């Protein structure tokens, strides 16, 4: 009987984290799958959300600013706003330029954010990160299974809400404009500066979702540190979108589940291949395997599990 409960606890924890990644993946789908915008700094926006929420909701701590002890929900909302603001700034700086300049800039933002959270000890706790982040339903903390399941239910409800809202947006007129912009640059030119406005809205909303994801994880785990937000995280979210099928919200969620599972399983396998003191190499091996699988799937089955048919480009010249 205890084993079953342990298993259930593990499963609910896994599912909770997978769904939280799914929220970030939904945001990325909005930016890339629906609008064709290229964000290589996903981790940065998740970090902004996580740290904002943590700083607002934790109790005051020595040597670190922040710690206002605000309610968790407030933390989440402000986290979304902060991430949205950062996304908007990046977008405004780069939307009128070549598409890959957005990629490079977002990559730069990721590096910059990581540098700041690592070194601005007074704000962010530096390499030690921020601990004792309040958990939702903290009263249940002494009953692990109930705690886990309740949090899972909370996250699931949030994901459902986000999914429903996105589906309505994407299937409506706004979403249609986005897809038109993604497919046809001339349509974009015809819409003139309005094209920039639509893209800005999409990028900002996507960034807000990434911030929400970061905030959710901060509160569900209770602890964040700079190491959580390295390039690997961006890679994971992208892998989820590619595997699930970009352009498709359900695909984004499915991809989150599948890639989370593959990540955990491969972690167990590679961990077993190396002695305990060499676990860093095991993690590196996992990265290699998943990286190769992802590259292979990009080349061989680009539409992922549920994605749209790739269209033949109208302009076949390189």
């Amino acid at each position, binding site marked *: 009987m205890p084993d079953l409960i342990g298993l259930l606890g593990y499963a609910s924890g896994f599912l909770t984290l997978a769904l939280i990644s799914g929220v970030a993946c939904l945001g990325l789908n909005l930016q890339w799958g629906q609008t064709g915008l290229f964000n290589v700094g996903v981790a940065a926006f998740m970090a902004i959300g996580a740290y904002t929420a943590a700083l607002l909701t934790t109790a005051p701590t020595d040597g670190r600013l922040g710690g206002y002890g605000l309610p968790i929900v407030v933390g989440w909302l402000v986290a979304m706003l902060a991430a949205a603001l950062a996304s908007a700034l990046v977008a405004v700086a780069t939307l009128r330029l070549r598409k890959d300049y957005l990629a490079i800039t977002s990559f730069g933002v990721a590096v910059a954010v990581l540098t700041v959270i690592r070194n601005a000890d007074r704000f962010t706790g530096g390499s030690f990160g921020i601990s004792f982040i309040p958990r939702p339903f903290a009263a249940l903390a002494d009953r692990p299974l109930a705690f886990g399941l309740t949090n899972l239910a909370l996250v699931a409800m949030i994901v459902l809400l986000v999914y429903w809202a996105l589906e309505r947006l994407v299937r409506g007129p706004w979403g249609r404009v986005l897809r038109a912009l993604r497919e046809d640059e001339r349509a974009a030119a015809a819409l003139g500066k309005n094209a920039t406005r639509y893209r800005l809205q999409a990028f900002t909303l996507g960034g807000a979702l990434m911030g929400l994801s970061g905030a959710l994880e901060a509160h569900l785990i209770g602890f964040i540190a700079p190491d959580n937000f390295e390039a690997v995280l961006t890679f994971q979210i992208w892998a989820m979108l590619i595997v699930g099928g970009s352009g498709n919200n359900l695909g984004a969620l499915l991809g989150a589940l599948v890639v989370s599972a593959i990540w955990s399983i491969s972690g167990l396998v590679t961990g077993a291949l190396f002695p305990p003191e060499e676990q860093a190499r095991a993690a590196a091996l996992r990265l290699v395997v998943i990286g190769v699988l992802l590259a292979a799937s990009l080349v061989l089955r680009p539409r992922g599990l549920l994605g749209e048919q790739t269209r*033949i480009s*109208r*302009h*076949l*010249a390189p």
Partner: protein
Amino acid sequence: MSDALLRVEELWAGYAPSAPIVNGVSLQAARGEIVAVLGPNGAGKSTLVKAMAGLVPVSAGRVQLAGKNITAVPAHAMLASGLGFVPQTENVFATLSVHDNLLIGAQALARAQRAPQIAKIYALFADLARQGLLPAGRLSGGQRQMLAVGRALLGEPQVLLLDEPSAGLSPKVVAELFAHLRVISASGVAIVLVEQNVRAALGVADRIEVLVEGRNRYSGAPSALAEDPTLAAFFLGATRAAPP
């Protein structure tokens, strides 16, 4: 008419196989002959020469040059097969100097040949000789066309395709350009010329091909078209009524 140097037979081409733009077009050009391809907007004239040059996928039919089937030859090998192409827009390397543009054209020649052949191009297009070091983007429209033609000529093509060379040029410059084309054809090069400027084309062509909606509609001497206004009006875009 002497043996055709260039033979295009029932060519079907377009960017997507399900939506062909060129629908079974045939044409020929002999050594030293200038053939003008005319027709209303959207008739597929540009797509035809691009397909011949290997830039647009061909779904059926073939292109033969001096008896050799060159339909499947990749675009960059066309020049070596004897087919030169001068596109309508962006036909020179604007950031490279005039001389560098010509050096690119002469790349396939033997090293010792390059300087003399380039000197010949400068002799043909006197304007360019004075602008050797200028970036090609700063040339006037007419000079740019001459540079584009000069670059293609350096590849010693047997057939030269030009896509609307007169576009954007003043009548005086067009006349000058077309005079040069006549000199080039006199040396034995077959020229196929896609044109919107019907008057100028009729003045230089030995034969005309009219395309409408991607199909051959008329083939013959330029005089016939010039002398019959109804024919001209119909084929060159005025009406869609049935031909007389």
